[in-house]
């Protein structure tokens, strides 16, 4: 099976869906002529032309609102945020309009938009460019939130996202763009709302998503080898809708939970998970639910220190040991 990068996987998904559905339009800053700020859309302009691959001015509220409006008439825009951090300048369009017009119209309208882009820290780009707003987005009924960790997941999930009739927010990671993984050439989709057990284990469940999956898998190797602890890693893949059944089954099996997330602690995705786990798996917990999050401060610039601020394999190992106490 060929090995392609996460970036390429996304590109292939875009290309396939652009081919499949003439209503799909890719839109964003530098997506066309520049071939993508992170080269995700590299080559698409040449293949699909400027009607399908559209460069926008720096105008997130404008072009995302435009995309939402167009989707009400049947266009399926896939809009790129160069950084998900920029969502805040388009907050009204994303979380008031896209999220709510179906509801406010009593179900007469739907907005089949996709907003995609990288949402991550760890690249020393500072506090305003390092947001991971999946918790903020997922808090809004009416939207869907996807955070893939691997090339295989990214491709299958993006295709589903584009085909989905509801607004889907697709959060990538600049650091993962270069990660290679096995991706079949034959077409496949991964349904939204389906988690994936990336590693089977017996002693403790790590519930995680995004780049933290990679950290957790690395940590799990060390924990097995050096500490004899068998860790199961559950990759949520989609935050909303949430495959909680997979999480539950894992917790009931191992009886110990560590949530690992690149999120500031307060009201993060993990906070919601912890409530649900203790609510639905209370009698199966052999210890409190632990959570490893980003250290609670704006993203620091200083490169080595930012690594420590975010979850990383060493911090995951420590957290697992603490959770096993």
């Amino acid at each position: 099976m060929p090995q392609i990068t996460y970036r390429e996987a996304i590109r292939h998904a875009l290309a396939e869906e652009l081919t499949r559905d003439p209503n799909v339009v890719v839109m964003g800053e530098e997506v066309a002529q520049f071939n993508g700020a992170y080269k995700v859309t590299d080559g698409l302009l040449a293949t699909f032309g400027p009607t399908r691959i559209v460069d926008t001015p720096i105008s997130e509220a404008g072009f995302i609102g435009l995309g939402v409006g167009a989707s009400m008439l049947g266009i399926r825009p896939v809009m790129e945020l160069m950084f998900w951090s920029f969502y805040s300048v388009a907050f009204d369009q994303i979380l008031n309009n896209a999220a709510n017009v179906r509801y406010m119209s009593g179900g007469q309208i739907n907005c089949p938009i996709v907003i995609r882009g990288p949402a991550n820290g760890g690249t020393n780009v500072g506090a305003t460019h390092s947001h991971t707003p999946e918790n903020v987005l997922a808090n809004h009924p009416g939207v869907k939130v996807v955070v893939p960790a691997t090339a295989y997941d990214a491709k299958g999930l993006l295709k589903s996202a584009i085909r989905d009739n509801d607004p889907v927010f697709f959060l990538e990671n600049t650091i993962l763009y270069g990660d290679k993984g096995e991706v079949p050439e034959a077409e496949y989709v991964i349904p939204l709302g389906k988690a994936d057990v990336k590693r089977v284990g017996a002693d403790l469940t790590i519930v995680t998503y995004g780049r933290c999956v990679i950290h957790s898998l690395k940590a799990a190797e060390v924990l097995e080898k050096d500490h004899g602890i068998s860790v199961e890693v559950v990759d949520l893949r989609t935050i909303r809708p949430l495959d909680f059944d997979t999480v539950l089954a894992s917790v009931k099996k191992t009886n110990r939970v560590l949530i690992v997330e690149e999120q500031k602690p307060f009201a993060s995705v993990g906070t919601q998970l912890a409530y649900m786990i203790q609510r639905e798996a209370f009698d199966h917990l052999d210890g409190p639910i632990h959570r490893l999050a980003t250290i609670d401060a704006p993203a620091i610039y200083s490169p080595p220190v930012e690594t420590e601020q975010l979850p990383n394999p060493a911090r995951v190992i420590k957290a697992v040991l603490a959770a096993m106490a």
Partner: protein
Amino acid sequence: MSKKPSAIADTKSGAAVKATDYALAPINAALSSPQRIELYRTMIRIRRFEERSLRAYQGKNVSGGTNIGGFLHLYIGQEAVAVGCCSLMGKNDHVITAYRDHGHAIAVGMDTKPLMAELYGKITGCSKGKGGSMHYFAPDKNFWGGHGIVGGQIPLGTGLAYALKYQGKKGAAMAFMGDGAVNQGAVHEAYNLASLWNLPVVFVIENNGYSMGTSQARSSAGQLAKRAEGYNMTWGQCDGHDVYEVRALMDKHLTLAREQSRPSTVEIDTYRYRGHSVADPDNTYRTKTEIEEYRNKKDPIQVSLHKLLAEGVLTEALADKIDAEARAEAESAAEFADASPYPTPDDIQKDVYWESDHPAERKSEGRLFFD
């Protein structure tokens, strides 16, 4: 009030007479008598609906509870704008506006019963009671709301135009906003995109002189529609009291959009007799004299009535009949609303996701809702 003074002369009859008779404009001259009467009728229906909803808002229902909660932004005084613009819509033309949307809703042809029921929050409302006054929608009539955040609807309207162009349809989107919205960033972004990408949108500024309690003079630097020039768009301006005048100007801009796929901005000067919302103490920012002056001299319904009487299209008797019917219609709408049931708590989580409303076609898995 520091608005551009319009050339209006008082007459004994109290009707406003303009130097230019817009009835003669081709778009209006081509109207048949029934069509002219329909323009008048629609305005009167809007007026009576608004008055009836105000009465409902201020009163209580039979159980002693509230009929209408939240906001109620009345269109009284501005009827000619919505009616004039919407009367020009072709099958590929679309409309979107802000929260003062009752006039547009009626003007595009929505039935007043579900409109009133929506105000009452009943399940029979046009948005199933989920939107309220600010969120009327009728996709089948090319009407896309009804939006609460000032200026937020303008990028959406631009998107409607984008879709039309993308789909190769010859049509235009009319994106309405108030005089206060022109200062929102999103509006500027939309202007830029529309002009940059040659989108068939007409940005219509309904300038009623006040954004809530702040007059234009205190809100906006420079003339409102003229800002379009900064984005390479043409602009126009007219008074909004004469439905013919509105039609005459809008026709030009709609043609520009449809035929040449160019956006433009139109500023239509109008007036609202009631406050920003019904809860607005409007004596803080304007005088009763001012309101009276408009009511007496520039009321769009009066203007139209006098015109049609003069044209011989309407008789007083017919006008009275139309009025009576409009009142009856409004009353009937109120009765319908009153008698309708509310949504149940089970309805709260419907109409959130397309997928949760179409479970048989759902492709995703997992929990869409949480406790």
